[in-house]
């Protein structure tokens, strides 16, 4: 389900509205993922505190959302944009790709909570497709 020109425009338009809250969205989404899907905690056994709002969660949420924001700016060529991160996830992090879907769901929940008027069904669809494409590119180097 490739991104259409319309999808790209919609995602960029949404980002213009939410970019200022990107750090919060990332932290909130990650915290929710760890709470609602406890199996995801297995990737963070090296953290002291896995609760929502904790320092490591905030920091890492910001890192992740930073990368997502960067991908939005390079939405015309996601494979190239994500090539290095894909290498990292494949060789070092080895996060099971099923978890990308889980995090995507939580990003969507948080965007819906913070921007209910802007997050129409059409915007939801385009964001869902974007995150799916992002996940696909991230898993590109896995095998």
């Amino acid at each position, binding site marked *: 389900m490739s991104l259409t020109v319309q999808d790209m425009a919609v995602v960029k338009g949404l980002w213009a509205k939410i970019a200022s809250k990107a750090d919060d969205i990332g932290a909130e989404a990650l*915290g*929710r993922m760890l*709470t*609602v899907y406890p199996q995801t905690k297995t990737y963070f056994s090296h953290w002291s505190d896995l609760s*929502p709002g904790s320092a490591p969660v905030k920091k890492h949420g910001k890192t992740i959302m930073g990368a997502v924001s960067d991908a939005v700016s390079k939405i015309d060529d996601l494979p190239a944009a994500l090539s290095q991160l894909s290498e990292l996830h494949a060789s070092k992090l080895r996060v099971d790709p099923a978890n990308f879907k889980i995090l995507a*769901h939580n990003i*969507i*929940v948080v965007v*819906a*909570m*913070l921007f*209910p008027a802007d*997050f*129409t*069904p*059409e915007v*939801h*669809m385009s964001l*869902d497709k974007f995150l799916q494409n992002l996940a696909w590119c991230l898993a590109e180097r896995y095998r």
Partner: protein
Amino acid sequence: MVEWTEFERATIQDIFSKMDYESVGHNALARCLVVYPWTQRYFGNFGNLYNAAAIMGNPLVAAHGTVVLHGLDKAVKNMDNIKATYAELSVLHSEKLHVDPDNFRLLADCLTIVVAARLGSGFTPDVQAAFQKFLAVVISALTKQYH
């Protein structure tokens, strides 16, 4: 048997007691049909579903969204026996409606998102966990009679 904590029970009762079934049901089903267009396959006789505006404005979609949401009432009132409560509905969805069970998850996700948008900051991570657990149990029960 599913174990529910006091918090989970209270959370589910609270969410549904305050829910605007017409609005939430309509919005959740319409959102599902827009975001996951292949789900439209089950609504061939609903008329105009050509675009998001048509779907959102379609009265049959609105009416059916309400029906689906009231269907969740059974589970809200029988949290300790959801599996048995949905046996008949499971047979219906399998034998008569022929709904791919993966679609239950898609609708559940849309419902979660609509409720999240309504509750805003009240939809804390723990509330989200309770709500999604509840929906997962319902989905499991609705899938039980498929063979």
